[in-house]
Every structure is written in C-alpha cells, then in structure tokens.
C-alpha cells in the first residue's frame, strides 16, 4: 500500500541526500522498508543495525509499522560526547 511519508535526514544522511526533508509516496509497511527504498539517498554502505530511526519524534524499532502521514527520522550512527 502506498503511503505518504515525510522523511527527515540527519548529519551524513542529510549531506548525502542534499536535502533535510522530503515527502514521498512509498510502498512500505515498516520503518526498515522506508530506509531501504531510500538507500540511494543516504549512503547504503551503512548497515541498518548501526542506524536508528524515530517515527513522529518517538524512537522506534526498524520493524515498527509506518502509517500514511507519518514522519520518519533517519539517524546515521550517532557519536555524542
């Protein structure tokens, strides 16, 4: 099922995509599906397990379901401190 998903890119993902946000119509059940559809935009060399995702400003698992209208935040490997 095609859903309208707003995707936000951070850090290296944003630099790679060249934009920080876009709304796409995508066939996706989970956050991981969204990530995979957008691999060319955010550096596919980065394994999913190193990245994090949030849905509507809540940290989420990659297998969390996405709904039409959701905002998915794609976080490359973090490095605080």
């Amino acid at each position, binding site marked *: 099922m095609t859903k309208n998903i707003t995707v936000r890119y951070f850090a290296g993902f944003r630099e790679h995509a060249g934009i920080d946000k876009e709304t796409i119509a995508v066939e996706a059940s989970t956050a991981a599906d969204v990530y995979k559809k957008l691999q060319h935009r955010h550096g596919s060399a980065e394994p999913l397990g190193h990245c994090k995702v949030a849905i509507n400003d809540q940290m989420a698992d990659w297998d969390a379901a996405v709904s039409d209208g959701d905002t998915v935040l794609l976080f490359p*490997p973090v490095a605080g*401190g």
Partner: protein
Amino acid sequence: MRITADRINPDELRNELVDAAAGAYVGFEGWIRNHNEGEQVLRLEYEVYEPLALAEGAKVIAEAVEKFPLLHAECVHRSGALDIGECAVWVGVTSAHRDEAFAACRFIIDQVKVRLPIWKKEHYVDGHSGWVNCERCAEHGHTHPEAVSS
C-alpha cells in the same frame, strides 16, 4: 538533560548538585582532543536533534537513578561548533558513597554516547572533514561522505 550552544561551565553545574547528604561527587567531562584515529583535528561540530536528544537523555538519567542509589544526576551536551579543548559533554553525579557515583557517572556517559541523536563532524588540519562513527561501529572507521556512496 540539557543541550546548549554555549560554553559548558562544569563548576556551576557541579554546584547545582550540592547536597548535605552527599559524600561523593563524580564528574565526567568530554573534551575536544586535537587528534582522533591518527588525524589532527582542528575543530568540531555537533549536530543535535534536540527533541529526541533531550527525551532520550532524560530516559538515561532516569535509568541511572533507578539502578543506583543516587542523590542527583545531570548531563549537559554541547551543540554547534567547538574548538580544541572545549568541553563537549559533562556528567555529574552525587551520592552518599563513591561506588554508586562512579558507576552511575560511567553508565550515563556510556549510554549518552550511543543512544542520543547527536553527530560529530571533525574538521582536520589537512582540510577534509568527516562524520565520526559511533563507538560501537568504530571498527569500521569514519563515515566520510565519500565513502558511503550508494
């Protein structure tokens, strides 16, 4: 948990944790080193996604308070551009005895480094720059934009 674009003042922050029941204070500060993985670092930028960095940081501190018998615990992380020697992150913990102050301070900084949506871009002496990988992924080296092409 706090995120700030201003200089961190550890002394001021420490004073907020003062408590007559406290026998131990442990403070951790992460400073900007002039080198990382063999490269000379000139300066550094932190990108922070504040809403979730604050929420996740508060969760980390709450977990520390639950795990250890603490009096107070706090963490402050910088955002934006930092020079060599500046304090990027501060963690302070007070408790009756030192065991739990050391353990909790360590727990908080370890969790903050791997869980908060914060990214570090290093600018090197030779002109190039790169996003620094998280500690858990460190064996893979830097995630230079050039290196992650699709």
